[in-house]
């Protein structure tokens, strides 16, 4: 242990003990909690504590993952069971304060779980259907600590990994440790993290960058944002370790503009680390220096692609670059760079602290450790789960997620985001494993799992995914720009009952061209939703696209994208600001090319 870490740890333990000596109330105020009304509950709680003159600590914590039970209020009062109250309304707060906090009588009828199961009739937290079977590594602090408190993070073992790496391991040993752990990138590509790091470590440039990617434009996935708003220090620590291991000088956390909590909390965590000597010059007195900052990007899905991300960090349009040169040679600002997903980096502190063997002991032969899945859609318990690789999708959805809530049949899962695929219910016994899933055409991607029941039209959902892919195509290369537009047009025709006999073949041809000819993953994978939907539900597609009588699908109102053929109508940003420059061309339409609702 370094001399500098010891006093920090001591201080942290003191703070931790102090927190437990009096009532401590934790309210989940992450994005998920706020959407469920946690803001009003927090306000009511603060007012009630002061009205009833109770001395208690109130902490805003991130999400616990149990999103279905939000707003969640977690009450710890010395001498009583630590109790988790679910779906709390502002009206319930007064009684919770009076009975549990003041009179020390937990309210069993409102309780969802307790920490240890000592309240009669209330299950222990670990026995909840959604919690049983979870292994929390990256989410180990979710709902436990105040995300803005360095001391609380340290009290739970935070920065022990960094301390261990800096005080007792060479750079090469850290890279080797991560490689031995079998950690693979959690952003979608599932490439070995240790191997990726070794590329950057091999470059001797004095300025090198570690980029942590929280663009997370994937609709259906919210795990990156959750980590940043729930436990930003774990990301910061992981990034510093990555910097040490690869000999990098700077870390950049890349976040999409607009998500207030993740941005705010990460920024403040970085500031706290500078103050504590965990960032900056001579970290923990070991001579290692490293700087970190936050970089924001505008709305752009392609900005999550590693070379497009570097363009955005440089403040340009987020369009992918040609490779080679690869980022480890020429990255952001022309310097060698390494890009990892937020989730990947968040595993690093625990891997170093507990060792590669421990991590490699979780999961399957080729997919080590845990994954963070976001369950949403037609599911009883939507939320966030960290589960070991190797469990079946059926267990994840039907047991941990509680299955379809209204008793209908689950038809398929949409996995891997808008470039991912459809996993039909017949394949639910598939084991959660990166390689096995990608072989089945259903990428695990960044962890979004949208459960769709029998009422969901596959053609309709495919259209929505393609509308997204089309809108988000950056436009740099034409196979993607035109391909996504063509696919969307064909799908729109199908939904409107105007399919042409050649449409299925045409989609296949366009899709193959996109895969072969696109510069980045957006175009290369853009046909995935269609191809996997066609594979699993060929009959439904054929029926929808046949003359016999398509099933009516209501028109889809789509966004007005500036990237979407708007030039023809003068409806562009340029037209709004510089009307004098607009040449008023009228859109050309023929009888067979009527503009659709989404066009």
């Amino acid at each position, binding site marked *: 242990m370094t001399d500098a870490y010891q006093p920090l740890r001591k201080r942290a333990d003191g703070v931790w003990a102090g927190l437990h000596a009096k009532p401590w109330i934790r309210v989940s105020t992450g994005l998920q909690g706020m959407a469920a009304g946690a803001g009003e509950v927090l306000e009511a709680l603060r007012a009630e504590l002061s009205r009833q003159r109770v001395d208690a600590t109130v902490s805003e914590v991130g999400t616990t993952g149990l999103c279905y039970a939000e707003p969640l209020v977690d009450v710890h009062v010395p001498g009583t069971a630590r109790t988790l109250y679910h779906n709390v309304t502002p009206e319930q707060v007064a009684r919770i304060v009076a009975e549990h906090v003041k009179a020390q009588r937990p309210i069993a009828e409102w309780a969802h779980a307790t920490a240890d199961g000592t309240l009669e009739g209330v299950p222990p937290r670990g026995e909840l259907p959604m919690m049983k079977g979870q292994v929390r590594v990256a989410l180990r602090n979710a709902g436990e600590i105040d995300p803005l408190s360095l001391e609380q993070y340290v009290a739970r073992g935070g920065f022990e990994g960094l301390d261990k790496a800096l005080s007792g391991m060479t750079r090469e040993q850290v890279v080797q440790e991560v490689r031995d752990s079998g950690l693979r990138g959690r952003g979608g590509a599932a490439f070995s993290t240790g191997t990726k790091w070794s590329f950057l470590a091999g470059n001797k440039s004095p300025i090198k960058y570690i980029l942590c990617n929280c663009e997370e434009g994937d609709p259906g996935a919210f795990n990156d944002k959750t980590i940043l708003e729930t436990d930003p220090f774990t990301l910061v620590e992981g990034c510093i370790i990555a910097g040490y291991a690869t000999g990098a000088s700077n870390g950049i956390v890349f976040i999409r503009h607009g998500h207030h909590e993740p941005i705010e909390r990460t920024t403040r965590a970085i500031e706290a680390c500078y103050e504590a000597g965990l960032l900056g010059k001579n970290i923990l007195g070991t001579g290692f220096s490293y700087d970190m900052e936050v970089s924001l990007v505008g709305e752009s899905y392609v900005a999550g692609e590693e070379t497009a991300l570097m363009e955005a960090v440089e403040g340009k349009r987020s369009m992918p670059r040609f490779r080679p040169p690869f980022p480890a040679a020429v990255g952001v600002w022309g310097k060698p760079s390494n890009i990892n997903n937020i989730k990947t980096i968040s595993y690093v502190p625990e891997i170093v602290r507990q060792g590669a063997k421990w991590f490699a002991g979780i999961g399957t032969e080729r997919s080590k450790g845990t994954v963070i899945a*976001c369950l*949403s859609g037609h599911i009883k318990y939507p939320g966030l789960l960290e589960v070991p690789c190797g469990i079946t999708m059926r267990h994840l959805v039907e047991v941990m997620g509680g299955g379809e809530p209204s008793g209908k049949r689950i038809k398929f899962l949409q996995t891997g985001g808008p470039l991912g695929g459809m996993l039909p219910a017949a394949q639910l016994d598939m084991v959660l494993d990166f390689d096995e899933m990608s072989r089945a055409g259903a990428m695990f991607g960044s962890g979004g799992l949208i459960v769709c029941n029998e009422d969901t039209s596959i053609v309709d959902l495919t259209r929505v995914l393609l509308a997204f892919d089309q809108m988000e195509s950056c436009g740099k290369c034409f196979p993607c720009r035109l391909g996504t537009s063509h696919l969307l047009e064909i799908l729109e025709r199908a939904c409107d009952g105007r399919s042409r006999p050649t449409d299925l073949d045409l989609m296949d041809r366009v899709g193959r061209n996109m895969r072969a000819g696109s510069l980045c993953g957006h175009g290369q994978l853009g046909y995935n939703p269609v191809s996997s939907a066609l594979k699993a539900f060929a009959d439904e597609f054929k029926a929808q696209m046949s003359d016999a009588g398509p099933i009516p699908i209501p028109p889809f109102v789509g966004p007005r994208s500036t990237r979407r053929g708007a030039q023809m109508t003068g409806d562009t940003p340029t037209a709004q600001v510089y009307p004098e420059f607009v040449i008023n061309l009228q859109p050309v339409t023929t009888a067979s090319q009527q503009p659709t609702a989404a066009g």
Partner: protein
Amino acid sequence: MTTTSDGVRAKAREAIRNQPYKTHTILSSLLAVQDALGFLPPEGLDEVARHRNTTVNEVWGIASFYPNFRFTAPAKHVVEVCWGPTCHVMGAQPILRGLLQRLGLHAEGDTPDGAVTLKMNTCLGVCAHAPAMSFDHRLAGHMSPQKALAGLEKLRSGDQPAHAGHDGARTASGGAR
């Protein structure tokens, strides 16, 4: 807008100078201006170009690429509807159609009276509570067409005032709350 061109310029300059992140780029400066003014007026684009020592053309090329930038003053209130796949499956379209009808709009945009901006968001990040919306950047989950219309009325009746700036400039779309 009640401010003069010079006033807008000064505000944009201040926002660019005080942006909270270490590395200043064209993009970070544009985000700062939009956060401060609620949109990017020509004066703002010009100030970014001066600050970054580049041309307005260059700045414009970047500003027009990201759909979260807007170039006219936003309406008094901003209502966002998530259209991501989860929200779609859970019923975002009926909500959207109901709002469009009530607002007299055909697509996302501003009402002619400048009262409401309706925006389609690709993902508000709260999929567990789909279908999701936001009213003046306050998230709301488990929406229905009825709840959406009720929320809109509440917004318009002034129960929940917009986060107004000093002289009519509003907080940015998706910006600080």
